[in-house]
């Protein structure tokens, strides 16, 4: 009796036994591991380093390099096995330090080095090369290979960015596995066999993947190099600091690396909840723009239609004078501030504080290309929740083009059979081939599509199988965002326990909106400006002429506003209309925090000195406030942060120590209740011979960061109208020819191309491409936009 009772108490005190826990012995020490784990991973945790080349924790093991051989006690004595392929088993006895294992490690390394050129002194990898390092730590120390080494032409370009040196390649299958398994672009592969095995692209098909830069990062030798970093520095000269990429709103963790005060590369950091060490090429290589010669270095004031350089105090006083005269003449409502999504949370907060102090609510961080901030009021999902949900409903943009690393995470979820993707779209996306269901719809028909697909029997049973996450964003700039919001409301009505992951694209848009930069709407502000009601417009890293979908409205607005102050890193088309242009500090030149699309606040770090006299956005806001006799009460970026987290309810649970302690960032607490669904707008009928316009983004566009990065600038596909091949036949225009596109207000001449991923009856035009005029065809006040096409 007593003993039973004791047993019961001890059971209660002990945590429940994990059925997957196993204990193995590595070099005589007991190591706790989990079933299914590989020996190499368990050894990493126990501190017994096993040399490896092909093994990568984020990819499936292949056991090709054979470097990670260890001895495992078997029924017939110790057996040599590759630790990257052998799962742990309870009671397993592993030895990594016997003379046999040492002999095997030395033997494999000698073989790997046999044909590897010893050009380490001129190799970019030299100094951070796993082959070099492990040859030192586990190698034989001498070479007995007296034969002539393998020779290939070196290096050969395999894409516009990446070069391949097949002599250095040790054929570990990392890049080819990445391309196939992670990126889904199996454009590089092994060719030939035996001693002649080599990695190559297929004939006439370059490795044009959005993720090609990752292969350079994971290459264990210097076989793959990227143009932007080639021969720029030696690894031991690089200084690095961890930061967060703000190219899009995924917020990948990166290291920012520089030498001689020049940004030289970004490398992905393995952040488990976010980017798993992957980056897209746009985020990885757009550091070139920071060092661009086109950067603004000095404040500019327009005199007689010409910009002349001025010092900061003159320029700021002139700007303050413009603001105060606007306040005097038209009241607070005549001042407007657009932008803030490009900078840090602190930048956005300082400007929103200034706006509130001035009394204006004409403030928006989005430029009519996002969704109303009510989207944040739904129960929020994280990226991890989305990538582990049993069903993911995609409403909106092509994630591969807009948020590439989120695309990788969802692709992985689908490929590993964790999630089924139900996609709605006016055009097929990069995820369509991984989707369980794709429902195509004409612009404006989202709600009907959602209602019919989500009530199908098979879909209903799928939705009942587990968690559901709705990934929602703006898929079409040529239709009203109300359609997407109504469709989201319809999904939430049908799947009430679903969570929402809003995918607004701009780098820190969530942070800017949370910091208070969303009290107005860009469309209304520009309408007011066009009506002459705005006297002073401040552009904080915003370029409405290039980014606002309705080109006509943006043009009318900027022409009607008498005084524009622009704070930017480059002279944009909108800046050139300004009276005063102030140079802003760019990414890598300022400290602060940023918020990604799931509301994860993480640290940005400064690595290089600011260009010319440029200053961070928040500092300009504070100094401008000073000149306007407004005391924002902050003197440093830390002050801004502290004030922001105490005053802005969205940031309230966060403090500086929490951010410092967690490199992966801290999630914002969710606030708000689900908004009341607005009635579905009535979609006008489409005339038989017109095409409903779908305008969405490509990864590479005419944006400043791409246009000023020489390696990326040429990758933008250019502006064209894409039609379904059958529609193109009906039009009678050959692909590649020019056609006249007639919109509601004006007509433009554009190249026409065939694309089977475009649905019939719609015309897809990529947004913001070099030479693009699609904005002329978009009326922001219309629910949908139609074009007629004429053969010329």
């Amino acid at each position, binding site marked *: 009796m007593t003993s039973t009772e004791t047993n019961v108490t001890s059971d209660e005190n002990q945590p429940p036994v994990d059925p997957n826990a196993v204990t193995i012995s590595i070099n005589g020490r007991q190591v706790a591991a989990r079933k299914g784990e590989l020996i190499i991973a368990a050894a990493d945790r126990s501190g017994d380093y096993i040399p490896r080349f092909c093994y990568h924790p984020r990819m499936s093991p292949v056991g090709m390099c*054979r470097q990670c051989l260890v001895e495992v006690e078997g029924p017939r004595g110790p057996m040599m096995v590759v630790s990257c392929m052998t799962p742990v088993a309870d009671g397993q006895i592993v030895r990594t330090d016997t003379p*046999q294992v040492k002999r095997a490690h030395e*033997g*494999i390394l000698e*073989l790997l080095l046999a044909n590897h050129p010893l050009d380490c002194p001129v190799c970019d990898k030299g100094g951070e090369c796993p082959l070099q390092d492990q040859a030192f730590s586990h190698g034989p120390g001498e070479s007995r290979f007296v*034969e002539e080494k393998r020779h290939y032409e070196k290096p050969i370009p395999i894409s516009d960015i990446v070069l391949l040196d097949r002599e250095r390649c040790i054929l570990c299958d990392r890049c080819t596995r990445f391309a196939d398994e992670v990126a889904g672009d199996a454009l590089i592969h092994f060719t030939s*066999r*035996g001693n002649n*095995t080599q990695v190559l692209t297929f004939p006439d098909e370059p490795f044009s993947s959005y993720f090609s830069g990752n292969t350079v990062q994971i290459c264990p030798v210097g076989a793959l190099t990227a143009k932007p970093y080639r021969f720029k520095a030696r690894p031991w000269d690089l200084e690095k600091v961890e930061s967060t990429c703000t190219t899009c709103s995924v917020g990948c963790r990166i290291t920012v690396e520089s030498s001689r005060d020049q940004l030289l590369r970004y490398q992905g950091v393995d952040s488990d909840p976010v980017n798993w060490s992957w980056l897209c090429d746009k985020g990885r290589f757009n550091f070139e723009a920071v060092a661009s010669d086109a950067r603004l270095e000095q404040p500019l004031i327009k005199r007689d239609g010409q910009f002349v350089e001025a010092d900061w105090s003159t320029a700021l006083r002139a700007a303050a004078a413009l603001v105060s005269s606007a306040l005097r003449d038209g009241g607070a409502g005549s001042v407007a501030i657009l932008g803030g999504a490009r900078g840090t949370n602190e930048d956005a907060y300082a400007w929103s504080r200034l706006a509130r102090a001035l009394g204006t609510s004409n403030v928006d961080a989005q430029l009519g290309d996002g969704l109303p901030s009510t989207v944040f009021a739904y129960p929020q999902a994280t990226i991890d929740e989305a990538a582990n949900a049993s069903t993911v409903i995609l409403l909106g943009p092509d994630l591969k083009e807009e948020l590439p690393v989120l695309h990788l995470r969802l692709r992985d979820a689908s490929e590993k059979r964790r999630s089924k993707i139900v996609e709605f779209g006016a055009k097929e996306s990069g995820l369509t081939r991984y989707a369980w269901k794709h429902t195509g719809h004409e612009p404006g028909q989202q709600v009907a599509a959602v209602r019919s697909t989500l009530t199908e029997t098979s879909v209903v049973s799928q939705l009942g199988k587990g968690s559901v996450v709705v990934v929602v964003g703006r898929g079409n700039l040529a239709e009203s965002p109300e359609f997407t919001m109504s469709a989201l409301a319809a999904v939430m009505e049908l799947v009430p326990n679903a969570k929402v992951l809003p995918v607004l694209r701009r780098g820190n848009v969530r942070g800017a909106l949370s910091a208070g930069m969303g009290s107005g709407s860009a469309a209304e502000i520009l309408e007011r400006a066009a009506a002459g009601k705005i006297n002073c417009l401040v552009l904080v890293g915003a370029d409405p002429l290039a980014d606002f979908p309705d080109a006509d409205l943006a043009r009318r607005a900027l022409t009607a506003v008498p005084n524009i102050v622009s704070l930017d890193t480059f002279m944009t088309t909108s800046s050139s209309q300004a009276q005063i242009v102030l140079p802003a500090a760019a990414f890598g030149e300022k400290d602060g925090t940023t918020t990604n699309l799931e509301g994860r606040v993480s640290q940005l770090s400064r690595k290089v000195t600011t260009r010319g006299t440029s200053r961070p956005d928040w500092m300009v806001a504070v100094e401008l406030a000073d000149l306007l006799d407004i005391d924002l009460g902050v003197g440093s970026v830390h002050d801004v942060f502290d004030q922001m987290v105490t005053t802005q309810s969205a940031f309230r649970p966060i403090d500086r120590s929490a951010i410092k302690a967690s490199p992966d960032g801290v999630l914002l607490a969710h606030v708000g209740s689900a908004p009341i669904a607005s009635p579905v707008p009535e979609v006008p009928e489409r005339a038989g011979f017109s095409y409903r316009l779908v305008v969405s983004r490509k990864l590479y566009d005419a944006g400043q960061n791409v246009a000023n990065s020489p390696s990326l600038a040429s990758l933008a596909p250019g502006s064209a109208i894409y039609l379904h091949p059958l529609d193109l036949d009906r039009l009678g225009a050959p692909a590649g020819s020019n056609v006249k596109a007639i919109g509601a207000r004006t007509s433009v001449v554009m190249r026409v191309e065939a694309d089977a991923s475009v649905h019939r009856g719609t015309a897809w035009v990529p947004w913001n491409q070099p030479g693009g005029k699609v904005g002329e065809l978009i009326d922001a006040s219309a629910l949908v936009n139609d074009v007629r096409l004429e053969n010329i």
Partner: protein
Amino acid sequence: MTSYAHAPGFIAGDRPQIVTSRFQYDDSFTLERYLATGGYQGLKKALGRTPTDVHDEVKNATVLGRGGAGFPAGTKWGLTPQGKWPRYLVVNGDESEPGTYKDRLLMERDPHQLIEGCLIACYAAGLSQCFLYIRGEMAVAQERVATALNEAYAAGYVGKNIMGSRFSVDIVLHWGAGAYVVGEETALIESLEGNRGMPRLKPPYFPAAIGLYGQPTIVNNVETLANLPWLLVNGAEKYTAIGTKTSPGTRMVAVSGHVKRPGVYEIINGTTTFRDLLYGDEFCQGIRNDNQLKAFVPGGGSAPWFTPEQLDLPFEASQVGPAGSMLGSGAVMVMDHTTDIPRAALTLTRFYAHESCGKCTPCREGGTWLERILSRIVDGKGTDADLDQLLEVGESICPGVFPHASSSELGLSAVPFPYRMNTICFVGPSAYAPVHSALTLFRSEFEARVTKRTRIPVSGSVS
């Protein structure tokens, strides 16, 4: 179609014939001849019994796999997981081991026997479809099997409701593209799926659970399946009456090299010795010009070599293994006393280095390195240090002691087969086996070819 009087090299003799009984006919490959000589009777008998019954018959007969590993076919069929469909039979007709040409004859001379064997296997093991993978270089075999398959389909032996029963199975032909490693079963599956012919990683050691297209798959050798029609007609008892208990039935052996009558023989398993085969009147009738036998390879190019000392070993895996080699794919290559041993080793090693798929490091780099050192030695440009270098490189491919035969002359005792390996599959060790055997058993021949180098002392310790 041209017809041979006899398949090249096949000598029947007066012995029990299980798989070669029709080789005597000029038109042995036609359906007409096949039916006239008891064809498709085994299938008919099988269809009259339950699949489990047929499976048990094969199990009782202990039909050993003839591809090289010698794993019992009946046991292999039982490894597939229950309740997972579809499941496939893949016939390994990618016979590419140097010296081996028995499956080619079986496909060229008696394709219907193979087809019938496939059908019996599918019936017994409950397999949904059969893929017949024939080596790319075997043009005649491809043509004969394709023609036979068409005939069999037309006659209702293959396809839907075979011979009026409820059993249906399709046989799909696939031709290889000429890679040695595709003879390895997982590489063959990769190749069938349309991928690069590279071996899959082990475990799983058998594709029985996860094979072709991720489904349960049985991979059998051509000769293994060719045994089944005879077995079903005559029963397991008669089958096991031939040969020994552990190695019942007959097996086909291809002999090449310096013998008077090279060719393929169907020998009795387990009892016939190498001496019988090489010197017997009904077999090879001795070494050419009555020369001295120097060495022979007992089981295909990748097997360690034997010397005349091992001549009295029978074709029995349990005796050949401990003696330091393997029976493998049933190919005996004979070298008489005129053979240039280093050159012979180079010929074999060059083949394996060339056929390495390039997937794993030891085989890709080590195989080529071995070949280059050897060719240097053969060209008379080697040094004595190269001999140890060969063994060192081999050590990186196969760690530990490599199997070899005993030699009373050299005072060597045998190291039993198999070897340990650092590679994914057997191609890498195969490149090393001839080097190791040649260098262990005939080191003096190598030493005669290389230049001695005096090591110059680094620090002058002049007395």
